[in-house]
């Protein structure tokens, strides 16, 4: 209670820092995209493009604010605000490390996150409708249909994790993973992968990005939005990405735990954050010397300095011997591991975006309703059975989970086979129409 200023600080940090971080996630995405496409990406604005987000933000802010003539003025303004608010508010219950959580120790934890982020589709459909553009509303409705379809899957997948944890409280979930000595991804892998796929669809990322694709007939709900309003939608999308990655990390990837937290001889892993940051700093120093312009090398040196400072802080709070900043150890190191895992999760999003083609809308819906929802549901039932077996009948938890996971995989195979047969029959019936040649021979 006396630490209300900590929560306020966390909330302020979220509102002020997340937009900046979202901008840098965009930059990272462009660099990752370029790397996978055998090219370099932004290199000009700042060394290696590091100031690109600043330039982009400035450009978007000074753009003309266009509102279509017959658009509903209030809702046109309100829709992106709603999207951003939903995304940022849902971050309130996410714990980025053991110390950083706005709604501290809220006992409905992740349910709050999932529930509030479900307000996001409102912003999309309102924005599409308020644009007074035929194609916008079609894109908005498609996007909303996609989002609400995959929320069920995501919910079921999360439930399988909650069954294992026994609680919705974020802190308790991570604590249970520590005492269990295993991340829940190893106990409930199908839950994790189902959640992964559902979260890609939840954030409108490829291969589920049909509503946003440029080469489609409809340009999506963001068509009429330009400048700062558009950047609010993009911010909402990237904030959502951070939220789903955080939820997945918390529930399945061990949250802010170091890999193998209870294994004593792997204690040297605690040196990883310091070493990593120092290595990044050293690399920045190295590249600073190679920059063509003085401004860029200065900026690179500043980045290197910042990395070294943070590395020093981490080093001084390491759990080796008696170091001055050790009271900060839990918060700092926890935040580091948590953000590392979230980064890996988001990198996976990006990797999939640049590798896979896009789903067609009906295929997307079929995947969601015919395959993923039944699979997630069967997974929940199987996890419950495994837990009952292990707690009531004393079966080893791991063995029970392995057996039921195998059963769920078998069910998945069956689902896929039934689905293939169904969709083949459907498309064959659709395309059996008379040929041109018959007409000409008859004529």
């Amino acid at each position, binding site marked *: 209670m006396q630490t209300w200023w900590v929560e306020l600080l966390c909330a302020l940090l979220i509102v002020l820092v997340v937009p900046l971080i979202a901008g840098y996630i965009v930059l990272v995405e462009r660099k990752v995209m370029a790397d996978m496409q055998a090219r370099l990406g932004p290199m000009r604005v700042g060394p290696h493009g590091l100031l690109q987000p600043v330039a982009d933000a400035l450009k978007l802010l000074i753009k003309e604010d266009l509102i279509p003539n017959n658009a509903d003025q209030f809702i046109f303004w309100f829709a992106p605000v709603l999207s951003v608010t939903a995304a940022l508010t849902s971050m309130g219950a996410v714990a980025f490390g053991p110390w950083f959580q706005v709604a501290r120790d809220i006992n409905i934890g992740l349910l709050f996150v999932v529930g509030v982020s479900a307000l996001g589709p409102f912003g999309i459909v309102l924005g599409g409708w308020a644009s007074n553009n035929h194609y916008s509303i079609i894109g908005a409705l498609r996007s909303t249909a996609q989002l609400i379809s995959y929320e069920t899957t995501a919910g079921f997948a999360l439930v399988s994790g909650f069954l294992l944890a026994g609680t919705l409280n974020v802190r308790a979930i991570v604590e249970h993973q520590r005492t269990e000595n295993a991340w829940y991804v190893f106990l409930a892998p199908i839950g994790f992968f189902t959640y992964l796929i559902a979260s890609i669809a939840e954030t409108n990322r490829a291969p589920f990005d049909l509503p946003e694709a440029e080469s489609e007939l409809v340009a999506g709900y963001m068509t009429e939005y330009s400048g700062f309003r558009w950047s609010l939608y993009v911010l909402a999308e990237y904030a959502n990405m951070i939220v789903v990655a955080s939820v997945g990390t918390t529930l399945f990837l061990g949250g802010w735990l170091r890999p193998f937290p209870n294994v004593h001889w792997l204690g040297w892993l605690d040196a990883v954050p310091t070493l990593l940051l120092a290595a990044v700093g050293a690399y920045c120093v190295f590249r600073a010397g190679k920059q063509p312009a003085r401004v860029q090398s200065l900026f690179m040196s500043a980045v290197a300095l910042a990395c070294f400072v943070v590395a020093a802080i981490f080093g001084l709070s390491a759990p080796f011997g008696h170091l001055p900043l050790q009271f900060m150890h839990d918060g700092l190191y926890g935040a580091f591991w948590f953000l590392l895992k979230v980064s890996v999760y988001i990198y996976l999003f990006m990797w999939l975006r640049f590798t896979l083609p896009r789903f067609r809308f009906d295929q997307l819906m079929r995947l969601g309703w015919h395959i993923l929802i039944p699979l997630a549901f069967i997974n929940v039932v199987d996890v419950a059975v495994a837990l009952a077996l292990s707690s009531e009948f004393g079966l080893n938890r791991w063995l029970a989970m392995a057996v039921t996971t195998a059963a769920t995989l078998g069910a998945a195979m069956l689902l896929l086979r039934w689905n293939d047969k169904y969709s083949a029959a459907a498309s064959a019936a659709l395309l059996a129409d008379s040929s041109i040649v018959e007409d*000409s021979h008859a004529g």
Partner: protein
Amino acid sequence: MADESKAPQSPESLRPDVSGSSPAPSAKGASPSLPTRPGASAPLQVPLDNELSRRYRERFGAAILNALEDRKQSILIVDAAQLIEIARYSRDEEKFDLLEDYTAVDWPRREKRFDLVAQLYSFTHNMRVRLKIPLRADELPATLVPIWPAANWLEREIFDLFGITFRGHPNLKRILLPDEWQGHPLRKDYDILQQDIAWVQENLGIQSGQ
């Protein structure tokens, strides 16, 4: 621009008629006025008398106005009145199932001004034949769309650029030029200069100055 204005004045009388649709007697032997390459052993355009032409002649008689071979490519000159039957026979009996190309050539000095040229190919025999159909300027040939659906856009293009109307075509509109275009550009008497002057006068109210 200079070239455009030269075209109508070029001496067309110097251009001999190559379509070979002149009456039968002159097609019997190689006309002495047909130019050949200096030093060439054989004339380039000879009458065609093989299995193919014999079968056509047998079937259609006088409707096959002439049969030639130019640079070893078979050409059959047919009458427009029997076009549909000849086309159907070509596709069904002679197995020319691919309408490779369909176009027209304008010979303004001739009485039968246009030559419709259909290039046919047979997959089974790996053979090509060219059908040429001479038409008067006001004649309306039958559409080949019921025989080869490929003719749909090809005939639209002929209509667009030459002004030949096809009877029975499902959708005879201009295809390459805008719908409101006046004139048919590939005709030899199409004067773009005149069109330009008229358009500028009408829309801008000034002299074109070309």
